[in-house]
């Protein structure tokens, strides 16, 4: 054991980055690291979300818990979240979670006074901290007018109905409640490695080639219009569905294509709720993963490790 190093140097290549979307390659590592990253992104990167609601007046059709639940699920911009304190270990407020270090206060007051239904949306939430506000999607890709973009609907009010409340947002992680999860989608796939047996492929007629290409539900292969050769159009579109392999088999040409999953390279897709930027989510995830590893390493031979990791701690100490 001693002296042997399993250290690797994973490489990351970013393909696309938008505010709420990112696609990148992660190479030269294995599934455990990739999955750890994914899991941290979903469940352990902190954000801020409404956690406590004090309803002052509610004559809407939805009941108090209903509205509180909806408020909780509204994503709030959480760039500050990493620096904020969890209210449970905040010294400034004895953990009751109502101080500037660990909480943000929101107010909402809406009343419908005319005959038209009034939509109460996330834009009606007034924050005590301008850095923590409900997420706005100004550059909606559908090209909708900003006037139409009214935010996330909380409740609809008819004439005479009123809603007034005070809400406190706190820092939290997705493990405790999904509202604190910054990730809408975090997923990865093994990079497929496709090899076309050109020789065998040439034995096919154009008709057969077309059939072969169409057998895949996603567009992986295509036929070059000029050369009439089958080429790999988009290897990553392959969903490991084995359809093409089965097709090749059915055509009596096993080994027409060979497809392997590259065990050490992953293609990540990250989409956020808008609470933090996708790139930031990734960086925060790495940061947290490091902290977790630090916690393991630093306490590797302490009694605390036993408490924290149980048998695992002893195992680590024992080597």
């Amino acid at each position, binding site marked *: 054991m001693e002296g042997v190093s399993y250290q690797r140097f994973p490489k990351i290549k970013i393909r696309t980055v938008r505010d709420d979307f990112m696609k990148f390659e992660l190479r030269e590592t294995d599934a455990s690291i990739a*999955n750890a990253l994914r*899991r941290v992104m979903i469940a352990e990167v902190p954000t801020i979300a409404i956690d406590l609601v004090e309803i002052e007046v509610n004559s809407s059709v939805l009941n108090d818990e209903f509205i509180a639940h909806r408020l909780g699920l509204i994503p709030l911009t959480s760039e500050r979240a990493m620096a904020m304190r969890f209210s449970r270990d905040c010294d400034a407020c004895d953990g009751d979670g109502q101080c500037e270090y660990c909480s943000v206060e929101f107010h909402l007051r809406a009343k419908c006074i005319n005959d038209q239904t009034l939509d109460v949306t996330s834009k009606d939430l007034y924050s005590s901290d301008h850095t923590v506000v409900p997420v706005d999607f100004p550059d909606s890709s559908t090209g909708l007018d900003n006037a139409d973009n009214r935010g996330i609907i909380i409740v609809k009010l008819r004439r005479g109905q009123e809603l007034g409340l005070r809400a406190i947002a706190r820092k939290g992680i997705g493990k405790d*409640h999904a509202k604190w*999860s910054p990730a809408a989608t975090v997923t990865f796939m093994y990079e497929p490695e496709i090899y076309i047996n050109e020789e065998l492929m040439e034995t096919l007629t154009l008709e057969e080639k077309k059939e072969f290409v169409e057998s895949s539900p996603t567009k992986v292969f295509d036929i070059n219009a000029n050369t009439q050769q089958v080429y790999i159009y988009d290897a990553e579109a392959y*969903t*490991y569905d084995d*359809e093409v392999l089965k097709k090749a088999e059915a055509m009596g040409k096993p080994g027409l294509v060979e497809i392997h999953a590259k065990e050490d390279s992953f293609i990540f897709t990250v989409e956020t709720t808008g609470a933090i930027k996708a790139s930031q989510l990734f960086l925060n995830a790495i940061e947290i993963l490091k902290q977790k590893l630090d916690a393991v390493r630093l306490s590797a031979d302490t009694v605390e490790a036993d408490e924290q990791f149980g048998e695992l701690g002893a195992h680590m100490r024992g080597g």
Partner: protein
Amino acid sequence: MVVKEDDSALFNDLQENGLDIDKQALAAPVKNAVEKFHLLPEFLKVRGLVKQHLDSFNYFVRTQIKKIVQANDLITSRIDPSIYLRYKDVRIGTPSLVIDGVTEKLSPHKCRISDLTYAAPIYVNIEYITGSHGSKATQMKRDVIIGRMPIMLRSCCCILYGKDEEELSRDGECPLDPGGYFVIKGTEKVILIQEQLSKNRIIIDADKKGCVQASVMSSTEATKSKTVIRMEKEKIYLYLNQFATKVPIMIVLKAMGMESDQEVVQMIGRDPRYSELLLPSIEDCVKEAVHTQYQALEFLEQKVKKLPYSTTYEKEGRVLSILRDTFLANVPVRQNNFRPKCIYVAVMMRRMMEAILNKDAMDDKDYVGNKRLELSGQMLSLLFEDLFKTMNDEARKTIDMTLAKAHRSSRFDISQYIVKDSITVGLERSLSTGNWDVKRFRMHRKGMTQVVARLSYIGTLGHMTKISPQFEKSRKVSGPRALQPSQWGMLCPCDTPEGEACGLVKNLALMTHVTTDEDEGPLISLCFSLGVEDLELLSGEELHMPNSYLIIFNGLILGKHRRPQKFANAMRKLRRAGKIGEFVSIFVNEKQRCVYIASDGGRVCRPLVIADKGVSRIKEHHMKELKDGVRTFDSFLKEGLIEYLDVNEENNALIALYEENAKEGTTHIEIEPFTILGVVAGLIPYPHHNQSPRNTYQCAMGKQAMGNIAYNQLCRMDTLIYLLVYPQRPLLTTRTIELVSYDKLGAGQNATVAVMSYSGYDIEDAIVMNKSSLDRGFGRCIVMKKMSAVSQKYENGTSDRIIRPDRGNDAEQVQILDDDGLAAPGQIIRNMDVYIKKQSPKITRGPVQPRADLADSAYTSSKQTYKGPEGETPVVDRVVLSSDRNNNLCIKFMIRHTRRPEVGDKFSSRHGQKGVCGTIVQQEDFPFSERGICPDLIMNPHGFPSRMTVGKMIELLGSKAGVSCGRFHYGSAFGEPSGHADKVETISETLVKHGFSYNGKDFIYSGITGEPLQAYIFMGPIYYQKLKHMVLDKMHARGSGPRVMITRQPTEGRSRNGGLKVGEMERDCLIAYGASMLIYERLMISSDPFEVQVCRKCGLLGYYNFKLKTGICSTCKNGENISTMKLPYACKLLFQELQSMNIIPRLKLTEA
């Protein structure tokens, strides 16, 4: 022949032109069928979902009630016959209530809230005699109220009748609510449809011993009787309640004037086989030496049951009147002409003999055509008739009593003597208890009404179509429980409960209509004018001539017709032209050589498209006109494109499922095949791909699913409401779902389901749920419970009072109260919290106290506290103040509790696949696909092979295609040919188009390791229902706790915080295992240990004297031979109880 030629031409075309024509030819009829579907929404628009109830009630209030009043319209005094009261007219007003002399209109919702009965006054116009002794004058009075009639919601008397959606919502009513029930004292009551054997029809069957019998249940306005003619030991006898023993039928015939045996033989038919069967009976008659009518009457006289208190004893009169009025009461005897009755008996005997010769001629009691459904209108009319007659009798008695008095002070006014309470109270009582006790008709039925199930919208609908059986449920016979082929299209084949009522309780199918009575007079005269030869004019010989058919109208033999087919066709033509009622059925029975015409109420029937020689009468332009709104369903009916067929007439029809299946002889075409299912079974997608019991299970479970109840659900004050926080409409719908607006009031959510094994917490149908999904609101539900309090007024003028809470003392308990002493909405209410601070006066009886306020000391506290489980945090949702029937202030509290799913909550798909939540797993541990799809729940694949719910798999596929292409997919029953169900093939194409595998399986990574799973996982959305069974309401454990007073054993049941029983079988196990100390501990130490003093000498129990500190035997009067031992208290109790019954149990003690 023409068709055949066409076919071959088409075939040639096919071969010539290749595939192009093929597609067209296939597409054409499909298109046609799709269009016919639009009849259905149109049909349901005119019919509603509960038309049978509404029609029946409307018939009652419009026609039947008038008939009843007309038949009993005169009250005459027995003392002075010139004094009378005559009812001229009767009508039902609009629902209203008189409060303090002011008439106030009622709305159903108001009645629900303030515990009132939704009823309207019954007005009568009367003519009566006033004045006393000498001066009498006739007077008229209009609109006298004789009582209040509960009104069926949405009926013609209801204020909701004919209102549109907006008006309905303004009345606080849900526009989707079907109506068809009553509101009695604030609770909604539905009169169940009652299944009955046909009245006034000859039923041939075999009794227990295998004797063939013909029976008739006669029912006329005057009498009800049962007549049975049975073949016993080759002789034919009559069984009638009025005769003490069986009577030979020949003697009965002779008593009715058929003295000649030859005529009897002629009337039955001259076929020697029949005569042979009759011969022993004739011989028997001769043996008894009965030859003449007089002798026969003499003979029968001895058989008549002796009534205990018959005073007037007229000999012949008795037998004759029995024969006239009770024996076959449905056949009228005019001017003592018994001939129709004799012929009727002859026909009964003939049919019986046919059945003896040929077992196929036996009638099937379970055949739907031999059944009648009794609906609310009929039930109410029975009740009303009885109450009305009782009221008149009472009135007559009081009139007589007043008239008998010599000196009357006031002027005599007969109209004063009508008591209006008896009808109101009688109707209300029967409807609210469900007990129909009508002595006049010897009717004692229980459980006729039920509280409308408001658990889910579909449950309510299902309740309205429920048919309660005629038999008691305990009977262990399979016949009535089996699925009857004649149920097709009339009764739902899936929707029946499991267990004891299986197959007996049924539900109506989607398009079924139940008829109401129709006027017989015009129909009978029409029959005669169409060439029916009157029975009176026929000799016995002519009756069964080989070329003629008997015409039987509502069970009555009218005569015969020589060209029955032509007659039937003429009648049908008249019906299609709308000259006679559309529900009149004409049925030619070739076997019995009869034409049956029926216009009575309670027959089930359904609409069908008429076809001429296999060509549908509905053409494309008809459907286009329907779409454009020029046409309605009724116009189809009026123009003879569609007609209603009842079960019997269906036997004369050849019904094609689709137009393309129609052949030369086809007479009708089904409108849509999925209408053979009922409302509840209509929710199941692809039911025709499931194993049939699964559909039945789903029918039971669909009623327990939580969702939206009605649009007015938040204004209702039901005792218990379950609501879903985010209900959805199913991604995979059916046409029925749209027709019954289940898509507007859904009860479930579309969950992404992965069919795979996960974690081992998913065995035995348990499901694994995604915690993040639950966080986001999946399966979240609201449970609302009602609590109520009444501020009572007492007879001495005092009343309860609700006072402001004293915040100084017991502040903890009253913290949720407002200053008015009632719990405030929005407050969290915990166990032991006071929700109303009420006080009652100490003295509530005695003389009326002055209005002045009583001192505080005159009140005792009668506050009410909330009792709920510890740790739960329900909230006071609403507080409603209303006045109840007795004008007391009634305060109702709704307590709301929002729950998220937890381990042990029950879920179910729409395919009878229920399961509890086995574990809840973090999202990051859940499997995911490379698209980022992560399931909401995981279902174990072992649920599939044995259940064979292929429909569920297709639902998954269809929903998956639906979400990816953005179109709701359909899965109506048998819908593939007509395009109401998407085919798996096209679904797969859609899936492939959107980058999924055609088989619905996905390549999935484990969320725990990040490695791909070994198998492709079948994954996609399935509509999941959350069922009302939740652990929170069921979980129960206890250490020490309350005990029953009498036995000192722990109480039983969760509600009493009871102990968990070690039952007989558990005890057996422990004995077998030899765990004696455990048994001792369970049955004694932890139950009811008791120390007793036993006298070793006499073996009886003594007592412990605390002064002398010894045990003493009270029998031996000393304490010398006393031993102390332990005993279960129940055992000691048994000894004492035995002693009280003069049995001495003695204990013999030995050293252990």
